[in-house]
């Protein structure tokens, strides 16, 4: 094995000592996410696994899921779909296509209900529906568009944040401010000043460096073949959206207008003829 490859392997397999004991104690930080179902309506499933050499004391996870512009979450009905999480309100224009000005990429923050009391391992499964938007039609194959979902970010907050974790200066660079908790369940609003999560108070969380599960591949190259290499799964999850065929535009437009006008004219002519027959019959 070449030294650079060995070095990469070391980087991947062994946590680099960061100086932050809490982070350094973590052995596994994996997020495995996927989109299930075909069509415009998907189930977004993210499995998070965090394990540490030290017990997690009263710790809770939060997941920041970036929703791309070509998709949206129906936040009105979202809570009824969540079993073990709640979310911080976000406003999506659910009616607009991908190319509309009001369709924007934005994150949704999910907080796990469960608190890890004294555990070495935290497992969490997040599952919620996400919907794809209509995309602009095209006159060039392929007649589908790709919607990429970037990796979610995972944050953690623990009971001993203030006393232990955040007291460590080396841990400060992992601290991020995200919404403390979920929305209070009041109806969504269109108030322009509200951005996703901005109306909720912010709290300090540690951002974890979660990665998709490692994928093993065989190296059959000149080096002697067969030795496995471990690479992180780094590709975004991609969904495909069917597109209309713009080459049919003229046919469809003129065909629809002519067809409907023709139907009405035929009906009214029949009406007129029927009246005459009734009078003369």
């Amino acid at each position: 094995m070449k030294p650079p490859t060995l070095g990469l392997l070391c980087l991947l397999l062994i946590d680099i000592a960061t100086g932050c004991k809490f982070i350094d104690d973590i052995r596994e930080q994996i997020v495995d996410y996927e989109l299930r179902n075909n069509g415009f309506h998907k189930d977004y499933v993210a499995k998070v696994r965090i394990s540490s050499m030290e017990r997690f004391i009263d710790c809770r996870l939060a997941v920041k899921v970036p929703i791309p512009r070509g998709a949206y979450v129906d936040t009105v009905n979202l809570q009824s779909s969540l079993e073990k999480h709640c979310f911080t309100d976000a406003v999506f224009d659910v009616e607009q296509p991908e190319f509309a000005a009001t369709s924007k990429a934005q994150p949704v923050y999910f907080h796990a209900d469960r608190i890890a009391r004294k555990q070495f391992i935290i497992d969490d499964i997040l599952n919620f529906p996400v919907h794809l938007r209509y995309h602009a039609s095209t006159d060039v194959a392929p007649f589908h568009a790709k919607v990429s979902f970037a990796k979610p970010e995972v944050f953690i907050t623990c009971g001993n944040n203030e006393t232990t974790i955040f007291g460590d200066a080396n841990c400060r660079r992992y601290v991020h401010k995200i919404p403390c908790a979920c929305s209070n369940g009041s109806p969504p609003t269109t108030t322009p000043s509200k951005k996703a999560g901005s109306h909720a108070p912010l709290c300090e969380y540690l951002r974890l460096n979660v990665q998709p599960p490692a994928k093993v591949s065989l190296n059959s190259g000149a080096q002697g073949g067969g030795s496995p290499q471990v690479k992180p799964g780094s590709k975004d999850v991609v969904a495909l959206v069917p597109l209309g065929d713009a080459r049919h535009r003229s046919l469809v437009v003129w065909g629809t207008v002519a067809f409907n006008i023709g139907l009405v004219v035929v009906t009214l002519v029949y009406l007129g003829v029927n009246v005459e027959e009734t009078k003369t019959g």
Partner: protein
Amino acid sequence: MQLPAALLHPNMAKPAPLPSLTAPDKLKQRADEFKVLTAAFSLRLAFVFYAQIHDYYFHVNFTDIDYKVFSDAAIHVANGRSPYDRPTYRYSPFLAWILVPIAKFPDFGKILFCFADIIVGWLLIRLRRDQNAKFGVPAELDSVSDVYALWLFNPLTMIISARGNADALVSLAVLCTLYLLRKDRWIAAALMHGLGAVHLRVYPVIYLPSIFLYLLNRNGTSGSGGFFNWVKRCCLNFRGFAFAIISLSSFAATVAICYWLYGYKCIFEFLLYHFSRYDIRHNFSPYFYPMYLSVGDEGLLKLISLGAFVPQALAIVGFALKYSNDLEFCWFLTTFAFVSLNKVCTSQYFVWYIIFTPLIANQIKTSTPKLITLILAWFAGQGLWLFFAYLLELQGMNTFLPLWLSSLVFVAINFSIAITLIRDHLSPTSITSKKTQ
């Protein structure tokens, strides 16, 4: 659904005045109607309570997504805010006011809509009995079973209201307008039309041409004298113009009040949005695909809007000219054509014309097997569209073109149904004149 043969026999002598019901019989009739209305309401309530169980266990809710919109808007109003703070709330603000009790009792709106359904049923019974009396139907044959089958116990109408769809209120306003016109209370009808029907949903404005001509013919002046005489009579149709002015003025007054209360956002969401909307997502209307492919081309979008307006206008005026004396059939055909040719068409719009079916059922001489064929064809057209919509929406297959074609097929089926009903329609005058021959 056909009148008894004896009444259609050309040689039938002029009948003696029909004996009216005795007081005990009338009381019994009213009691029977009350029992039926109560049973229909109870069934709807059962669906409302079933919705709570269904929504808890299943991901796809029984409750209409619009009901959530109404509810949120009503809660905003209860909290002293504007209902238009709720995204996608595009209805009258007064609807949110009426639904304020939802803040304490979430199913209030559904129960209200179901109750409105029952009032509609009661009005249909009254109108149908008046029709039967006008056609000289004997007391023992004075049946309103069409109302029961086509409205009160129709699963489609029951479920639509129980799911929380507000079109029951619009149907009530439209039918009240018809009822008041039939009772010659045209001013009250104009107010109901403007304040109720058009205010809640703008579409009832399509009945104005037929109402104008109906009131023209009610003036009692001679119908002969050619085209120019007819035009002159139209110009002198005081009641017709007054009806339109009262209706549109009362509607304008409600719009002004809405603007005063909630500003431009109310006007846009409540009114202007519906005229400017380009819904490119798939629905029963064949216009979804042309609009989707034409996004970004303002010229083509305007052409499509005009192309949608022209056949609708032709149908509205054509049916008004022909059937203004038979308002029930006229409004059925007008609404049927309007919904079929609209730029957006969803299942809930079907209620807009189903409401008239109990009132035209006794004027159609179509045989029962033929009627069943027409109904099956109507469902088959929807089934074909739903098949391709399923492949697109839930399987991600590119079925835009066949979906558009199936939309055209559905419109064609609708118009073949309309032509069949036109062919088999017995006008009220022909029914009553056959009686007197």
